[in-house]
């Protein structure tokens, strides 16, 4: 992964995780696969680095977790969005949109 991508990822990893978890209870491995699939492997995540972010979001009350069985019958830790997390996701998305719009506007009009 290039430095440029790392920088973008670092700032937005929390938002991406919240967005993925918003779709329904999901375990860590699945989150990492989902982010890579959806981004068409644009983000080559060092997979371990996902977990500190997950734990941070859980400890701050944006995510809740419990242990459930997977399809294959193994126990795994499933994360789901809390009410607080949903609000957080909304504000982060709004902020992100406003910023990208502003950046795009500058790029267009500054020509």
């Amino acid at each position, binding site marked *: 992964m290039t430095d440029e991508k790392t920088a973008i990822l670092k700032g937005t990893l929390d938002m991406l995780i919240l967005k993925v978890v918003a779709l329904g209870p999901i*375990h*860590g*491995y699945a989150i*990492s696969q989902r982010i890579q699939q959806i981004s068409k492997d644009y983000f080559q995540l*060092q*997979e*371990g*680095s996902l*977990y*500190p972010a*997950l*734990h*941070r979001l859980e*400890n701050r009350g944006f995510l809740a977790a*419990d*242990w*459930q*069985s997977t399809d294959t019958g*193994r*126990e*795994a*830790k499933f994360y789901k969005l809390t009410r607080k997390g949903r609000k957080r996701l909304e504000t982060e998305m709004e902020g992100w949109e406003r910023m990208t719009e502003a950046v795009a506007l500058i790029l267009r009009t500054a020509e």
Partner: protein
Amino acid sequence: MRWPTRFFRKRNRESQLDSELRFHIEQKTAELIAKGVDPSEARRHAMAKFGGVEAVKEDCRESRAFYWLESLLADVRYAIRTLRKSPGFTTTAILTLALGIGANTAIFSVVDAVLLRPLPYKDPAHLVWATIQFPKAKMHGSFVPHPIYFAWRDQNDVFSGIAATHSEGNFTLTGGGIPERIRGMGVSANFFSVLGVEPALGRDFTSEEDRPGGPHAAILSYGLWQSRFAGDPRALGQPIMLNDRGYSTVGVLPASFKFPIPGRQPQLFVPLAVPTSTRSEVWYLNVIARLKRGVTLAQAEADLSLIESRAFPLLPKFFGRFTQEVHLSVIPLHDHLTAGARVPLLTLMAAVVFILLIACANIANLQLSRGSVRAREFALRSALGATRSRLARQLLTESMLLSVMGGLVGLAGGFWGVVLLRAFVPVGLLNVWNVHIDGTALAFTIAVSALAGVVSGLWPMSTLFSPGLNDTLQTTGRAQATGSRSNVFLRNLLAVAEVAAAVVLLIAAGLLLRSFLRLTDVSLGFNTHDLLTAQISLPSEKYSTSPQLEAFSAQLLGRISALPGVRAASLSTSLPNALYMDMRVGIEGRPVPGLNDPTSFVPLDSVSDGYFRTLGIPILLGRGFDNRDGPKTARVAVVNQEFVRRFFPHGENPIGKVILLAPGGAYQRAVPIIGVAAAIQRAGLSGKPLPEIFQPIAQSPSSDIRVLLRTASDPRILAPALRSQVLAIDRQLPLSHVATMDDLLAGETSRQRFEAAVVGLFAALALALAGVGIYGVISYTVDQRTHEIGIRMALGAERDDVLRLVIRDGMFMAGTGVVVGIGGALALTRLLRSLLFQITPADPATYSAVAVVLATVALMACWIPGRRAMRVDPNVALRHE
């Protein structure tokens, strides 16, 4: 599916974290296998894709709210386990630290009590000491003539209160119980109110009592009230007799009241009652004052200086020549009262700080040796994903734990040290101050311990990480191979620093010791050995007339001179090393000196004719007293050389010149000089010789007699015989203060002895620690170089060559330390100047002696590992590789 949730919640968080991450890697592996990757390759790939497991775990943990506490507890548990695994190191480190911290706690508690704590008076920051020095008057200390005090008192704009004191010396307190000698002090009526102190019982002095001829009043210290009056409130208003004059006690001071006059606490206060006239005589006063708010010391000095110059004309005429040179100063009262203790205490404080630094350097060195062994442990943990900051925190926890334990043991030692100090500190240095370990000293100990932990822990830490951890992991087995170059350099540097600090301390101790020896060696001008002294006070009821006194003296002298074992015996009115009575004198044919002109006062003694022979004082000119000088013959006097120097400075022959004595104030007695004796050190060991006049005791007998016996052997043996001779003359006569002159003089040097002993003790500790430091470094180097030594020996090096090699390295280190230490000592010992006597702070003898002592210790410290290096068997050493 509720139960597994509850089940899992109970499991601890660590295993949950572990399961979660393992699940991820297993899923990944399974997925890769499903894609057709080889199973072992799949797992490796999954791990690589995941990153450092331990680092991820650590990052996850850190997001927990109280993780710092958890990790601290874990670190402490781990540190305790590690320290218990090497009890030798742990004990050494804790004891070394305890030594340094304990010494610091004890000395700091004294510094805190004496120098840092504010004086126990109201608003003490505004209290000042105002004084004038007249260098031309050649008086001891500095005092304010009373006319100037009056002018200051009446005209100043800078003080809200100004009071004067006068050391009244000792009183004999009689009436109600046995007579007692007590320390008294004369104070102006407002003295206590300027300090902001109120009597605990009764009242303060009134201004009426402070007038000459006013009612005689006294205020008791709490201690005297307890000891003399058993704390009875009825003591108030009771008449007491002080020096045969009646006083009434009007008040008792609070128990907490302290006012040290040169380090001693007065037991009783009387009003000063300074005469209002300023023309005829001068009283020399001590002046304290309270600054008005917002007035600075410089402003006060300027104001007093102006008033003072206007007041000079009010002084008696003889004073005029002294006012040509005047030094006025206003200093904080606290500085004045603690002036004598400041340098000694700061010296001790500096000494213990050095001890602590050496202790820290030693522990840092020990940590470094351990560090090279532990480098593998840390490399392994680092490879498993522990971050550097995590490892650093671990090491810091370990050294903090050591210093906390060292601090606790040290605190116990500090309590003990304070008890010792209180018992052994000579009278006058700080006995008035309340020395104990309080909150401030406790806080100081905690701060020092923390600092010691950081200092001794941080350095080793920095080297642990400097070599590549991977290299460390790859070097197989041999711990000693891990000592990197910077590590060795740092260890040498620490040892050099230890040696340097020890050198500074040893030099300081050496200077104090030499100075003490010089002091005890001072030729007092008389032979102090084999000299027994004693005191007799003849009661005035039985011995009232001169013939009675004279008869007693003659009879006593006859009896004690005949005692077997006595070589010479004599009587005098004061001991040659003790306080003396000053007499106002003039020379016939010259102008009469002004009243209280300080240069007109000369110590006067009555002595029997054997006096000069008994003490071994040579007669330089004319003759000493003999049996020609009896009660009926013409009065004569012997003076000393210093008297001649002061009164006959132009080489006139003093013999036959007539001295005028003014015993009652007026000159009434004319005595011709018949001889000149050599001067002795009357004003103490470090003082200057004083002029003196002697009269025959047969012509001026006294009721207060000192006995001097020059003995053939140990003077103490003669004490019972002397006592029985006195009792044979008068069965009721007590002989008091029986002591040898050498014992009396030892008391005089007790302060110097104490300073030399304490700093010497600290220096010895420093020397031992520095020796251990050098030994540690050298034996570590030898261990490290076993292989190299083996090669050298296989190539034909002799065992002596090996020893020389090891010793050369060690001595180079010690030599560097000595040079640095001598440089430091030259810079620092200048501060000791005021404590030294006839020794310059750069005394070459002390410096070279210390260098030799240190070199010897260093040589021994190298010798032991050097012998070990000599015994290296080349076969074993080489096979070892």
